[in-house]
């Protein structure tokens, strides 16, 4: 292995490096200086994000266990952007008294999961994939329980770790059966030898459930609402965007490469689950009053929409999926960012009715949230519209008219509930709406990035065109 080969895994190595730097900083700073770790981590993460975009070689390592292609690098960069925004948005929350002495914990755990996701995305065999997956999951459970003195937060942590253990068990069972039928764990070997014998169908479905758990596809989504509600807002936003995005990325890669022989079958599996996911996610979202739960269910239905692109399976579909995740990062983090800011400033107000008349008191935040919800709902001219448009094109192109009809109907239903908070903020009258407050610099920067992202990613067609040049399909 030559020295240049390390360049291939520069995302992982850089993240490990900043994790070590933060650890050292944690050890060598006095208790009352710990706050300095926040800007340090954010700046380091920003550097890593920018370095990730620099051109670099592609290739494979460790006999094919690790693969770096342009598309995978792009995916990692997108995840880095998401993580960076979460970092920025967390800054003001980490300043509170409860969190002061565990600032670096938050960053270290997040970076560990990010390293896991990066390895997972670059994996070339099931072993590397599984290691990455676990590294990406376990620290999140700790993060969900970050708020030690809150019952709900602890409950979220426990629920996440238990249910993910169950899901990992089933997933591993599936992988072992794949190995049993094919005799190899390398993706390229498996993809050639895989077929549709009953055992292999079973192994695929087991593997699928593991991924469905991460992406929160119905009916493997039940943990989502409880964990999202219990965990601190910033962890929830990370979970709903970056973590989900990583799983979607690797899953879509594996479906069109490893499982290409049984594409007709997995498309059926996905067809059914996508339709159920969109519909049930929407139906649940309609009834939520807590905004975190509301966004949890909305993110479930979004997962259903994302699957449309995978089902298309074409080059366009893959590009649409990657593009949509990018859009989704900005939109969902924008929405979560506003909710977090309000929750922090108002002492934990997270219910829809608390937002009545918010536009009168906090117009900037209201407009940002409105823009984010518009983007999630897919209302032009925000980026979400283009994202949904490409996803729909991808399935329409392959002639899935029924699925498209279901998706369009669900978009209409989703419009209803995405506009509920907007109605609360702009139209509903309140005796005592949340008072005006000034957001601090970090929160503003985070939200400005999100708004800029929602607008620019939509209008600058070069971004989609570029992703499309990297894309591949069945």
């Amino acid at each position, binding site marked *: 292995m030559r020295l240049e080969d390390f360049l291939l895994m520069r995302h992982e190595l850089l993240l490990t490096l900043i994790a070590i730097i933060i650890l050292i900083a944690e050890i060598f700073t006095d208790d009352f200086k710990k706050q300095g770790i926040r800007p340090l981590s954010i700046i380091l993460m920003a550097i890593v994000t920018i370095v990730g975009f620099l051109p670099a070689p592609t290739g494979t390592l460790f006999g094919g266990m690790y693969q770096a292609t342009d598309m995978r690098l792009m995916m990692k960069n997108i995840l880095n952007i998401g993580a960076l925004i979460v970092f920025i948005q967390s800054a003001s929350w980490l300043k509170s008294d409860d969190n002061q002495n565990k600032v670096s914990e938050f960053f270290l755990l997040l970076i560990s999961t990010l390293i896991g996701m990066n390895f997972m995305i670059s994996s070339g065999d099931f072993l590397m994939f599984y290691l990455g997956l676990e590294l990406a999951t376990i620290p999140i459970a700790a993060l969900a329980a970050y708020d030690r003195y809150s019952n709900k937060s602890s409950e979220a942590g426990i*629920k996440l770790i*238990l*249910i993910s253990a*169950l*899901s990992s068990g*089933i997933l591993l069972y599936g992988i072992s059966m794949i190995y049993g039928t094919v005799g190899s764990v390398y993706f390229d070997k498996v993809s050639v030898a895989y077929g*549709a*014998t*009953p055992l292999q*169908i*079973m192994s695929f*479905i*087991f593997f*699928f*459930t593991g991924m469905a*758990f991460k992406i929160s596809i119905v*009916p*493997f989504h*039940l*943990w989502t*609402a*409880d964990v999202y509600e219990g965990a601190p807002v910033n962890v929830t936003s990370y979970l709903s965007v970056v973590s989900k995005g990583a799983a979607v990325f690797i899953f879509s890669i594996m479906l069109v490469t490893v499982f290409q022989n049984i594409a007709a*079958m997995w498309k*059926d*599996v996905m067809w059914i689950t996508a339709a159920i996911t969109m519909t*049930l996610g929407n*139906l*649940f979202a*309609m*009834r939520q009053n807590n905004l975190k739960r509301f966004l949890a269910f909305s993110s479930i239905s979004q997962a259903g929409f994302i699957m449309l692109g995978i089902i298309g399976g074409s080059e366009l579909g893959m590009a649409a999926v990657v593009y949509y995740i990018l859009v989704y990062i900005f939109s969902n983090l924008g929405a979560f960012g506003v909710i977090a800011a309000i929750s922090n400033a108002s002492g934990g107000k997270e219910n829809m009715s608390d937002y009545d008349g918010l536009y009168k008191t906090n117009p900037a935040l209201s407009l940002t949230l409105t823009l984010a919800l518009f983007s999630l709902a897919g209302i032009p001219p925000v980026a979400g519209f283009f994202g949904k448009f490409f996803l729909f094109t991808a399935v329409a192109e392959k002639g899935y008219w029924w699925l498209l009809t279901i998706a369009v109907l669900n978009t209409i*239903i989703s419009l*209803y509930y995405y506009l509920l908070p907007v109605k609360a903020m702009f139209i509903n009258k309140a005796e005592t709406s949340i008072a005006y407050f000034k957001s601090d610099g970090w929160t503003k920067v985070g939200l400005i990035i999100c708004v800029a992202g929602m607008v620019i990613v939509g209008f600058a*067609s070069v971004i989609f*065109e570029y992703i499309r040049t990297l894309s591949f399909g069945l």
Partner: protein
Amino acid sequence: MMDLSISIWIPLIPLFMFLLIGLFGHRFKPLVSGVMGTIGLGVVAILSYTIAYQYFFVQGKVDGVYHKIIAFNTVWLNLTDKLHIDLGVLLDPIAAMMLVVVSTVSFMVHLYSIGYMHGEKGFHRFFAFLSLFSFSMLGLVLATNIFQMYIFWELVGVSSFLLIGFYYTKPSAVAASKKAFIVTRFADLGFLIGILILSFITGTFDFITLTDTSGEAIRQGATIGFLGMSVMTWAMLLIFMGGAGKSAMFPLHIWLPDAMEGPTPVSALIHAATMVVAGVYLVARMFPVFHTSAPHALEIIAWIGGFTSLFAAVIACTQLDIKRVLAFSTLSQIGYMMLALGVSGYGGEEGLGFMASNFHLFTHAMFKALLFLGAGAVIHAVHSNVMNEMGGLRKYLPITHITFLIACLTIAGVPPFSGFWSKDEILVAAFHFNKILFAVEYAVAGLTAFYMFRLYFTVFWGKDDRHYHHTPHESPLTMTIPLMLLAVASIFAGFIPFTELVTSDGAAFEPHIDYMIAVPSVLIGIVGIIVAMVMYRKENGMPEKMANNLKYLYKWSFNKFYIDEVYMFITKKIIFNYISRPVAWFDRHIIDGTMNGIAGVTNLVSFEIRGFQSGQLQKYAFVFVTSALALVLAFIYLWTN
């Protein structure tokens, strides 16, 4: 050689100014916003002049013919391999000419507004909107394709809407802005359908491909018939409908007089010099297509233009509001330009009408902006729009008086002012096309001189001893400087050699003056002026007597031929009662009923399934495992049989 791609900054600077003033304007002192906007437009004007100079005299000409240059281009949306929407900058003679017009007038109006709008509430909002308008208009002018033009077309409409309704506490201003928006939007619907048909037939949005007279695109669809005309003719007529809406051609003219509710500088910029000629610009831009594959459409345009110019001129003779007189005069002059395009041929001397139309567009922009700004100065001084409440103002407003007189002489076609040259070319072109149209335009020339000098004498002479509440005084320098500069432009613009610069095919041709037409047209102008002088210079009973003698004509003209009432009758009585009511009933009972039913069912289902989400982990795990097994069984069953 200069890099022409810097022309992209011409629209971008006003956009930047709009964002800056719009977002942060309330934090500055009002004057700062105004000065910033004005400086921005000043830079744009300098850039535009540079680009126009570079185009006309350095880079534009290849082998004696002006070519279209794409100075900047970026693909925005790839629809299919062939059809894509670009955003870019197209330079050709008419675009370069319009750059000069828009940036000059806009700069003058910015400067003027600093004085005129001084102390108004919403000063920075006004300048933000002005910048938005300048951005949209420049983007429209520079569009490389018809879709980009449409986008900016709508943006221009929005800025016009915002500016007409600037005094949003005044109900009449709100009503006028709505009227303008609805009427032009209605016309734009035709425009959009026209664009879709055109792009469907030709497979391109691109102006260069579309207007290439030796190319493929221009010949498509000429043979496919639909309701007695070729599809291409239909498409071009629909596109013209958009142009007629923006340029307020009869019968879509009803919004323009009401649009005078906006601040006067806005009327000067948008409703006299730039936006309302967008329709003329559109037809000029698509002229080769009109000429090659839709000659019938062109003929219709000529007649509509001719009729509008006469119709509006008659109305202008009886109006009492100073700005409305100017508004109808604008209609009449735009009618001239449309007519000139309609009667024009293509190439060399044949294209005289095309050249004349653009020539008149240019000179008209200068003198009409001057007239409006002068009217603004008058209104500023006496706080009224109504002519009857004015008189003898020449003593109080010397600069305004002189510049206004220059503008009136220009529009009346008195040589050597610029209006004479451009109007004369139009008359020549009309004469060679159709004698009736020529006669109409000849009469209009006389009417124009009459109503303009009726205005002039009433305002500046008339009742010399009139008493004002407080003595009118001349406007500040920021207002008089634009007046003087525009007066200079009005005098000398006629000497620009348009036959060498702006022609239908880019090649120059020899201009010549046809004395058989020029002399009578000057004479009728002078007759109009003398009649107006006799009637209005000193207060006397003649106007009333005339009005009594021509009782019905006067009444009809005063009431704008009752076109507004006709519209109200059609919309209120016929459309509302016989179409909207039944549709509303259907919507309320059938559509809403169905939707409510669906919503009810959705709600019910979402209520019923909430038991799933119990919060118990055991239950979650149970659902997880059973679903996995169910999927396994189902798919093994499905795929192994």
